[in-house]
């Protein structure tokens, strides 16, 4: 079994189902946390700060940020649960430990987690999409493809987060990942402001992060400016998934395999 074929196993979906069952018990608070917080930032920055200026060539700040926040929502929901949540499932709750006494391959567990983060990212992203549509910030039927891209984004963000959850010594060390990787990625991801004025090297770093590409796709879908370039951005994400998914294999097997 390899980490890609693991996505197509029944056990991956059973792991997904386990997370769904657990999530159902606290769904409302989870929705609130994952929607209210980004929404508050969105309102404050978009309408508060945005009232003072507009972005040359991009219109209002709120219009610029709306699709960016779709990427941000995908990143936050997938990262937090694949890092913090998965750490709890593995270390404190023995969830994976009992799975591997049954005939479940560790890679099937990982695939189930990725699928789960795809679902979370899609769910919370769509709720946010509905909100910005309500504010009249969605301008194209292309936006109907957002759920699909949210799911792919959820997977690509979940992979490194799950890896980190498997290698840290204590749960608190996850904050290194949040602070040193996730937050900088958000700052250079094109969520809050355009990156045209960035120096070349900074743009290159941005280009290497999945958020940069996800945000570009969301912006194109929401504004209806879809082009061949948009397809290439999606391709970048797909390739990133296919490559990154092999990286955590050794760490996952080391902790859970025979």
């Amino acid at each position: 079994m390899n980490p890609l074929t693991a996505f197509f196993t029944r056990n991956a979906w059973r792991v997904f189902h386990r997370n769904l069952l657990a999530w159902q018990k606290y769904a409302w608070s989870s929705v609130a946390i994952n929607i209210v917080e980004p929404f508050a930032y969105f309102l404050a920055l978009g309408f508060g700060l945005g009232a003072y200026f507009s972005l040359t060539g991009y219109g209002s700040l709120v219009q610029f940020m709306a699709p960016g926040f779709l990427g941000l929502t995908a990143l936050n929901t997938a990262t937090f649960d694949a890092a913090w949540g998965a750490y709890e499932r593995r270390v404190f709750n023995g969830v994976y430990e009992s799975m591997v006494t049954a005939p479940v391959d560790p890679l099937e567990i990982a695939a189930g987690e990725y699928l789960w983060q795809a679902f979370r990212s899609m769910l919370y992203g769509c709720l946010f999409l509905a909100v910005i549509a309500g504010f009249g910030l969605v301008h194209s039927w292309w936006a109907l493809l957002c759920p699909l891209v949210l799911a792919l984004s959820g997977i690509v963000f979940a992979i490194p987060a799950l890896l980190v959850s498997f290698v840290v010594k204590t749960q608190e060390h996850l904050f290194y990942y949040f602070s040193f990787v996730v937050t900088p990625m958000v700052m250079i991801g094109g969520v809050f402001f355009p990156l045209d004025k960035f120096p070349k090297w900074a743009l290159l770093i941005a280009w290497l992060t999945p958020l940069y590409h996800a945000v570009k796709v969301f912006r194109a879908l929401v504004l209806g400016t879809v082009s061949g370039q948009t397809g290439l951005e999606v391709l970048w994400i797909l390739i990133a998934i296919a490559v990154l998914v092999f990286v955590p294999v050794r760490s996952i097997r080391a902790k859970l395999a025979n």
Partner: protein
Amino acid sequence: MCAQNTVVYARSLTKRYALVEAVRGIDFSIHAGECYGFLGVNGAGKTSTMKMIYCRVARTSGELLVLDMDPTRDASRIKQRLGVVAQENALDPELNVEENLLLYASFFGIIGDAARDRAGELLDLLAISGKSKALVRELSGGMKRRLVIARALVNRPDILVLDEPTTGLDPQARLLVWDTLTRLIDSGLTLLLTTHYMEEAARLCGRVAVIDEGRILAEAPPAQLVAQYAAEDVLELVDADGRLPSDAQLDGLVARRERHGDTVYLYNADNRALLHRMAALGFDPPRHVARRASLEDVFLNMTGRELVE
């Protein structure tokens, strides 16, 4: 090489971790339908042996066959036919009792009505059916352990592996688990368990292996171990001032004498005869306990250590 009814077979089995050699070359065969126990203190190598059998860690060297399959090659097929009660309960605290069973059943391909029927059956068997919608954290320690046993039985395993099934339970909960396991043994299921309670080993196991520092020191039915390595009776007494008569003075009634600090253990055939002889010598043993010998004494004799500190 496996006899017809051998379900687990180990020869020169070892397990080395980075810093410790947990299992140092052990041999054993477990037969279908028996209850086989590993008796030893913490760190003796019991759990490592179990984990090699239920395919959680790979062996370092030696031979190991579980249901005629090699755990390094056929882990998945072996797991399909094992029931495992690991030392940590590892119940899913975010799921309720029934969901725990149904999820685990699904990993064996048991789904839908078949899974629900099986879950109901097991909850009845383990007397926790009233709790099927309860969250795991609402269960008592004994109920949790019974739920883990129920979960391990969900796939109708050929061997039930239990790593310290009653450690940490109160006496009443322990009795309930023993009752359950006794019924499973009576039904013909093969059980493999570890314990540091000699009473548990004596009560449940057809054969016991005494394991210490990664080696098996002896293996036999519990009663035979007691007869061979202890004696019928033990007279335990405190002899702080060394006034205890010698073996010769006691007419050779003492089969074996062990001293740990001030406590002396006199293994003998009949405590009453021994006490009678002591009285005749004018020695009144201070603070003594006259009792039957047990596996505890076997263990003490073999390792110089007590099982439960």
